[in-house]
């Protein structure tokens, strides 16, 4: 593994050559335009979860659009909303339920793109004692962050499962209680704890909530109404880079993983874990809808489904929380 904090262009040529149009590589377009400085606030630590953004940064696609982008890392004590509200970050990566909560508290947010078409929440169980469908949950002990109780409640309501027949154990953010037999299943992201279990050699089964009616857009791009009105060009350029970056990511997730590890040698990332996470993320992000309309897209129907599920989470939102004008400009439709 390379330990250089600066990305070696030749290294990337080798690892990523198949993935991209070769024309861009020879150039170094970063300083070709007057650069406008913007920040993108990520929702978690650097990992392949945001690899599309790394590709856009590395290949200079933002620089071409006149942007100098800083990617701000998130973390367990780094909520996305405050930096976006205060203007530290032009765009933040959130999820429809968190955005709805913030809007209810008076934050002037709009969702301008949806990276995860399918919600990544999943229930992970050991293969010898699996949870394959929601009704399997009855009589089981589930480990989860208590903060996610409404998610489980919504799943139960959507599938006529008796919520009271499930025992919730507040395991917060560790997969260890499942292995220790303290719980029968875990509620987490499909790309998070189950990947760790698989890498550690623990046979597990996952049930994606999105396959059972739980429709909440995740990894959504949020901006303030003020930015949307006054910094439109920067936002369009940022999203254009994101779209190109994620399309390149889809072409070769292994190359995207290599780039992630090369860019963040101090992040302690494990190659195998990151590769598996990168591959598992693809079906969450790309669908027939995005194939037809482009990365980040949504329709009135998917928004309606979101509003329905959000209502089960006690979040009342209207369709104008979503603003597709930026994506329409990016995709030229």
């Amino acid at each position, binding site marked *: 593994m390379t330990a250089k904090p600066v990305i070696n262009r030749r290294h990337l040529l080798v690892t990523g050559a198949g993935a991209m149009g070769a024309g861009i590589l020879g150039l170094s377009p970063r300083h070709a335009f007057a650069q406008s400085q913007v920040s993108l606030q990520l929702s978690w630590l650097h990992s392949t979860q945001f690899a599309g953004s790394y590709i856009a940064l590395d290949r200079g696609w933002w620089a071409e659009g006149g942007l100098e982008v800083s990617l701000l890392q998130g973390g367990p004590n*780094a909520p996305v909303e405050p930096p976006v*509200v205060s203007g530290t970050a032009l765009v933040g990566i959130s999820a429809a339920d*968190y955005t709805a909560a913030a809007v209810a508290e008076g934050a002037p947010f709009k969702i301008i793109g949806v990276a995860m078409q399918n919600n990544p929440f999943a229930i992970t169980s050991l293969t010898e004692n699996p949870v394959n469908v929601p009704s399997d949950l009855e009589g089981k002990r589930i480990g989860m962050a208590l903060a996610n109780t409404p998610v489980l409640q919504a799943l139960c309501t959507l599938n006529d499962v008796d919520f009271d027949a499930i025992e919730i154990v507040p395991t917060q953010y560790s997969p260890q209680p499942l292995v220790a037999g303290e719980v029968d299943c875990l509620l987490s992201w499909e790309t998070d704890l189950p990947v760790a279990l698989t890498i550690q050699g623990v046979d597990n089964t996952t049930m994606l909530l999105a396959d059972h009616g739980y429709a909440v857009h995740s990894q959504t791009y949020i901006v303030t109404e003020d930015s949307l009105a006054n910094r439109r060009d920067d936002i369009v350029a940022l999203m254009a880079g994101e779209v190109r970056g994620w399309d390149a990511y889809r072409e070769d997730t292994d190359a995207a993983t290599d780039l992630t590890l090369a860019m963040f040698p101090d992040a302690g990332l494990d190659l195998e874990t990151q590769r598996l996470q990168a591959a598992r993320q693809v079906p969450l992000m790309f669908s027939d809808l995005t194939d037809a309309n482009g990365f980040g897209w949504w329709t009135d129907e998917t928004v309606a489904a979101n509003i329905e599920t959000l209502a089960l989470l006690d979040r009342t939102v209207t369709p104008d929380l979503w603003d597709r004008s930026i994506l329409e400009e990016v995709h030229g439709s």
Partner: protein
Amino acid sequence: MTIATPAQRWPVRAGPYLGPILALVIWELGARALSDAFVLAAPSAILIYLSDNAALMARALGVTLGNAAAGFVIGNLAAIALATLAVVWPRSDAMVRGLALLVFCLPLVATGPILRVVFGPGPWPQIVLAALAVYYTTLIPLLVGLRALPTGWLDLVRSYGRGRMAALIHVRAMAALPYLVAGLQIAAPAAFLGAMVGEFTGAERGMGVLTIRAMRGMNVEMTWALASVATAVAVLGYLAIGWIARLFMADEPPVILAAPAEGGRKGSRAFLTVLAVAAAMIAIWWGGLRLLNLSPFFAKGPWDVFEALFLAPDAAATRSTLANAMRETGVFLLPGYVAGLAAGAVLAMLVVLFPAISGTAMPVAIALRSVPIITTAPLVVLILGRGALGTVVLVAIMVFFPTFVACLHGLRQAPGRVMDVMRSYAASPWQVLLRVRIPAMLPAFFAAARMNVPASVLAVTVVEWLATGNGIGSVMALSASLSDYDMLWSSVALVCVLSAMGYACVGLLERRVLAAYAPEQLA
């Protein structure tokens, strides 16, 4: 000093090493037995991990250590400045203590994101959190130490026509040195922990970032390698400070004779002080938000909190949420606090009575405090269950170490001449402990009891946030993630007020006890 008989010599020499070796063996065997549970890595596995990932670990350690050191220096300088102010200008004493307490009570969950917004990317949130983690535990022992001197010395300075500054430099500073050392030693692991938790606010690199990664990835070797490195650094810091201090402190502690205090303050004056501190805190709160120009979406002022708690349509619901959460928290907090205090004081006495055990007790004590709580929590929960006991023990661990260090220093403050008298009467170690050392320890013990009020609150909220998911710590984390900043700031205000009340209760008890044993502290 100690004359060892031949029979004693063996345990005295091997004693310091026997304990750690035994602990390592138990650790190795325990880890192997528990290997399927993914909670504990064996020392051998940790060493292998460290040698395989030496470069990564060294870079992370460099980053976190740099931030911790900066925070350590800034926090302790602030403490020394505040303590000096309080002693040179006694009228400011109550205000300094009050504001310092309230600022220390601010929970990480609330301050972290705000520091990140204020400072932007870079190391400053980590440095500030490290400084916040240490200044208070230095300030409190220092305020005690600056008064731990015979009144005659001050009279002497005055009789030479010199003022308070001269007294501070020539007399008080020297008297305070042992207490400052205790404060600095407590601060060493706290600064490191503060810097690590500070990295949770979105830092690019460091040991805290790697810890999150290791925990989520169920990478037990990495988790424990990080914890071991953090512990080793904290232990080294602790020992280095002690070693430097011994170069400066050769004299035996003096006998402190002081006139009994005259009955404590009048009730009305104490009440006025509380009002003044509260008013100052509210003014700083309001002014700070204005000055930093923070968005009202997440930066709530005193009026917003008052409105949320008493005027808003859902005020009753907010109050009952907070009350229930506080009740859940109290169940863990109070037993943990008391147990931690007792354990710290008792172990300090044992170390003084049987010096041979200090070789084992000290590293374990420092390790317990400096192993990141997020690493130990799963192990404690596995052993003790997810019920109240696990949380109580974790709180006790956090309280235990500052108490232990403060009491150890206090016990060693037994006046040399009184000790000589006891020795010449061939008093047993028990009698010396009971009649000389414990009375000498009381000011330090109460200082520890007071500074542990907010420390235990911090501990319980961190455990609730990261491990158990209930109580006020969980309410704060949840409201931050759901952008319910009215609830978050209300919780913070409530935690501050309750901590201050707890502190005041300990203070009342302290005045009664010290009026008999250490009246110089009440002057």
